[in-house]
């Protein structure tokens, strides 16, 4: 059971801007293939006409994080790679993680403490301790 963490991808670009050429080519050619390959991701394409803000690919994840990446002056293959990379990610922050592993049950046979594998005090014969 695997649930993709990407909720939706919003592609905001303007059809007249010069730096959105890759985005337009992506929409014409590769958007349908991408949508078919990732059936559990919703892809919204919203062109806003006129000289608006820079073309942006916005990814929203199931835990609410929104990640925006600029696609200005990128070819359509690069946009496809970016989109697959975002689709494979989860919404956690990309910061330094301290441990590359995480367990809920770290010890199965009981955690080691300095008294494991030592004979008990009752049977040790020291110079003063007599066995009782």
């Amino acid at each position, binding site marked *: 059971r*695997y649930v*993709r*963490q990407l909720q939706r991808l919003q592609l905001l670009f303007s059809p007249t801007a010069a730096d959105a050429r890759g985005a337009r080519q992506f929409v014409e050619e590769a958007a349908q293939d991408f949508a078919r390959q990732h059936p559990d991701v919703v892809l919204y394409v919203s062109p806003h006409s006129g000289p608006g803000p820079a073309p942006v690919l916005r990814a929203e994840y199931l835990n609410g994080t929104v990640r925006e990446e600029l696609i200005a002056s990128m070819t359509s293959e690069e946009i496809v790679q970016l989109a697959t*990379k975002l*689709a*494979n*990610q*989860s919404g956690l922050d*990309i*910061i*330094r*993680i301290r441990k*590359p*592993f*995480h*367990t*809920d*049950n770290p010890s*199965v*046979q009981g955690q080691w403490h300095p008294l494991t594998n030592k004979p008990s005090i009752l049977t040790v014969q020291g110079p003063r301790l007599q066995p009782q």
Partner: protein
Amino acid sequence: VAKTSLTSPPWPEVKLPDPVEEAKYHAEVVRKVNGLISAGEYGRLFAVVHFASKQWKITNEDLIMMDNVLEAECGDRIRMEKVLLVGADDFTLIGRPLLGKDLVRVEATVIEKTESWPKVNVRFWRRHNFQRKKIIANPQTVLRINTIEIYPCLS
């Protein structure tokens, strides 16, 4: 001959038991462990697995992160070979160095393929006007161990 400090080695002398008795003891232990496994009386199992040039100690439902790219897509189920050790509450199976594939089965799914946090690689020589800056983001994969199973076919 007189006994000096070097006649006998400094470690205590260990007498090995009889090989026949040892073989009987081994057979009985193997039978007991086999019975336990086939009856299914073990609780959590942990395993030591060699993966991506590192050895991990894993149990059910835990997360592992690699600093590389696997060829499997997100959501693929992966079976891990190269199991060195398997243990439960009462017994452990130690491989020399690997355990057989028909004994243990470790399954994992690829959850995520992201990049690491952007690391800065700066090279600087003083008084030489030499400064190079590079941002590196390694690709990483996150796996979740689904199950560890053992089958009673010891010998």
